[in-house]
């Protein structure tokens, strides 16, 4: 490729259009993440932003890094976040009380100031910059070029990364492990005694109702005397009583 065509590269119209579609999506997702009270909504907004960023990576001649962004970030990391949100609880919404008075306003003022400073610096510094683009570097394919760099110049960083990942996995295992002291441990005999003690019912709990008219997990099972079996319902589900319309025969049988 000649130097003239290298120097003359600008952003194509299609890329500009894609940028102006996805940049507002990314910013709105980020703002939504910060302002939404529900942590699950925050996670979903962040996923939107990360997907938009993945589009930007692919747009900027980095198909591999874009795919890794989508697979690793939105696929793995954010799913891990959602799992932890489910473990930590549904009431993970945020407190509105300010511990330090005026902290929120001060943070927003600082943020606007920071954005102004960095934005102006970047805009001034990169005003005359022409992108040299990666067409030459990606001539043999993006993945091949990345692999060449990764396993030659950056091979020690790559090896250090493996040590980091092992350390992180071991650390997470240690932190998540519940260590029981010896006196807290119960043996099989006392566990069985407790299970068959007079107040506890050793069998499995009754499942939620599976009836001809409803198979919802929110429909409670009935005891032999017709009363509702409380143990058949999950405590987080609202108790559902069927209305007459719902309980009426659906007319789906042939007779």
């Amino acid at each position, binding site marked *: 490729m000649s130097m003239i065509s290298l120097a003359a590269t600008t952003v194509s119209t299609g890329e500009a259009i894609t940028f102006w579609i996805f940049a507002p999506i990314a910013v709105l997702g980020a703002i939504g993440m910060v302002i939404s009270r529900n942590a699950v909504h925050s996670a979903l907004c962040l996923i939107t932003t990360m997907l938009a960023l993945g589009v930007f990576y692919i747009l900027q001649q980095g198909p591999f890094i874009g795919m890794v962004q989508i697979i690793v970030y939105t696929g793995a990391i954010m799913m891990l976040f959602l799992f932890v949100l489910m473990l930590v609880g549904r009431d993970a919404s945020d*407190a509105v009380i300010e511990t330090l008075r005026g902290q929120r306003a001060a943070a927003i003022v600082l943020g606007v100031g920071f*954005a102004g400073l960095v934005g102006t610096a970047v805009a001034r510094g990169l005003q005359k910059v022409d992108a040299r683009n990666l067409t030459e*570097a990606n001539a043999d394919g993006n993945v091949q070029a990345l692999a060449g760099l990764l396993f030659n110049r950056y091979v020690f960083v790559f090896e250090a990364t493996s040590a980091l990942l092992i350390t992180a996995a071991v650390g997470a295992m240690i932190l998540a492990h519940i260590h029981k002291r010896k006196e807290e441990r119960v043996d099989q005999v006392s566990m069985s005694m407790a299970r068959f003690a007079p107040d506890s019912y050793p069998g499995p709990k009754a499942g939620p109702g599976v009836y001809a008219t409803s198979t919802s997990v929110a429909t409670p099972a009935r005891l032999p005397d017709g009363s509702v079996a409380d143990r058949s319902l999950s405590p987080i589900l609202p108790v559902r009583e069927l209305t007459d319309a719902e309980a009426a025969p659906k007319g789906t049988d042939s007779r």
Partner: protein
Amino acid sequence: MNPSYYVILAAALFTIGAVGVLIRRNAIVLFMCVELMLNAANLALVTFSRINGTLDGQIMAFFVMVVAAAEVVVGLAIIMAIFRTRRSASVDETNLLKY
């Protein structure tokens, strides 16, 4: 339009993440804000890679992703451990380390 718009977008996302770290109280949402800041840095790195015409920026973004994955695993495990003992994920109530 020239590629510096991507860097400006990255700066905006980084700022939003930083403000989020400052104003939110829930530890998990704080973590998400840190993730957003890392992502913004990644966008800047990929853009610089494109501006310079070499792939080193993309390699760095790749390593940032690895570090972010390790950080998230350990961080979420810490949050889970704190939640098990304190029954809360709010950073305001986790002030007993000093006693």
